């Protein structure tokens, strides 16, 4: 079949049209998508900042030579508010926040694509994890699907030049960058993560769980100093950053950046242990939309329950997880 004449009809879009459309879409990127709740964009924003902040936790070359002696384990959570405008500054500086500090990423184990399973048992077998599940499903929620993200390992190599450039771009010229950071590597080991997604009409809740991630920290590293740099990148002033950094056990605490103004947070009790509840509420199109994220630990397991349930139902569901 001679169809070349049809293939030849293809044309590239007018560059001006392509450029204008892209700019229009880009202008809308600050707006949240049509979601059932708007926690996700806030968290994604927080995540991007957290990535930047988190990457200052690097082993010194000297300590790396001595061997990696310590591991990060999530035991507690602490929320820190940041100005969402800082995220825009970070985005403007570089598209990929993860590479602000690293000039090399080596993937040691690829997690592969996310897999969907019809039952928790199948997912548990695939993840090699005994799943905790909620005994209480409020508002008629039922299991919709179970997803598994596989195990992953990666090693990053730091560049103090990148960090300095970032700090300069943010006009944080008073922050000192430890020289021994340059060329240091940090290894990250992610355990399989399982997400059980429950739905009922417009209500949705996802229970995510994974064994605590492992992040190699060297002996000799000063977590508080590095955490303080991360907090400055988040937008805290020097005094706030120092006070917060000094009050946190950085080896066991997951610091949760919360966009100021868009959310609120408080410490809660889940299963007898401490958890962190972040809630968002806003009016849009004449309706109030709310979302919540609850983080807690059970032994070495980190759990997160996110959804557009009201706070009471979310806590009820989390409390019933066994």
């Amino acid at each position, binding site marked *: 079949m001679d169809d070349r004449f049809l293939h030849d009809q293809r044309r590239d879009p007018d560059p001006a049209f392509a450029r204008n459309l892209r700019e229009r879409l880009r202008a809308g990127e600050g707006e949240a998508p049509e979601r059932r709740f708007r926690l996700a964009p806030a968290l994604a924003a*927080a995540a991007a900042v957290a*990535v930047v902040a*988190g990457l200052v936790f690097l082993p010194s070359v000297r300590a790396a030579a001595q061997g990696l002696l310590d591991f990060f384990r999530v035991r507690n959570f602490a929320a820190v508010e940041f100005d969402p405008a800082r995220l825009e500054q970070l985005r403007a500086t570089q598209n990929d926040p993860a590479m602000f500090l690293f000039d090399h990423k080596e993937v040691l184990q690829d997690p592969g*694509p996310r897999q969907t399973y019809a039952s928790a048992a199948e997912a548990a077998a695939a993840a090699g994890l005994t799943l905790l599940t909620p005994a209480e499903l409020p508002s008629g929620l039922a299991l919709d699907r179970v997803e598994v993200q596989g195990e992953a390992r990666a090693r990053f190599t730091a560049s103090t030049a990148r960090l300095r450039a970032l700090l300069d771009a943010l006009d944080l010229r008073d922050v000192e960058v430890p020289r021994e950071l340059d060329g240091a590597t940090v290894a990250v080991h992610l355990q399989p993560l399982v997400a059980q997604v429950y739905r009922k009409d417009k209500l949705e809740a996802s229970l995510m769980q*994974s064994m605590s991630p492992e992040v190699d920290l060297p002996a000799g590293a000063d977590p508080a100093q*590095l955490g303080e740099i991360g907090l400055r990148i988040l937008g805290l002033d020097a005094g706030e950053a120092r006070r917060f950094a000094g009050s946190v056990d950085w080896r066991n605490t997951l610091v949760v950046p919360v966009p100021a103004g868009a959310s609120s947070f408080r410490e809660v009790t889940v299963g007898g242990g401490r958890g962190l509840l972040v809630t968002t509420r806003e009016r849009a199109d004449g309706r109030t939309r709310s979302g919540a994220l609850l983080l807690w630990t059970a032994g070495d397991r980190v759990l997160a329950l996110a959804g557009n349930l009201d706070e009471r139902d979310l806590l009820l569901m989390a409390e019933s997880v066994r």
Partner: protein
Amino acid sequence: MASELVVYSRLTAWLAPAREADWEALYAAQLPRVYNFFRFRVGDGPVAEDLTAITFEKAWRARHRYRRDLAAFSTWLLAIARNVAADHFRRHREHLPLAAAEHVAAGDTPAELAERRSDEERERELVALKYGAGLTNRAIARQTGLSETNVGTLLHRTVRTLRARWDEGGL
């Protein structure tokens, strides 16, 4: 704080799946496909650009619904484009062209006329998906619900007709 890199990267992968997508790269790759899909449907000019823009704007607003484990991005985007095209033709079909009266006068019943129009519509869409959007027959089959064999047969027949008209200078 390094753990945030770990934990958040995974949590947000579920919470904001569209953010995983490299939107810049997807836009660059998919814009010509969507644009040419519409060019094959409505011809050159501002309408094709308008419909392309509507498609991308809809896709962007609904980006949380895109799950790459369920469908390739191009499949998802073209499904939106097909809906946009269908809406466009629905809005502009309220007034039949005068030429349609010829068929009625020639003895076609309204049902026959509708069927003829439906067949032509389907053929135009298959051509647009194949040569505008650059889909394979298999991908077109997935989009349209037709069998791959059926897609191949219909396209072969349509292209042969178009080829003949092209050779006669009628296109």
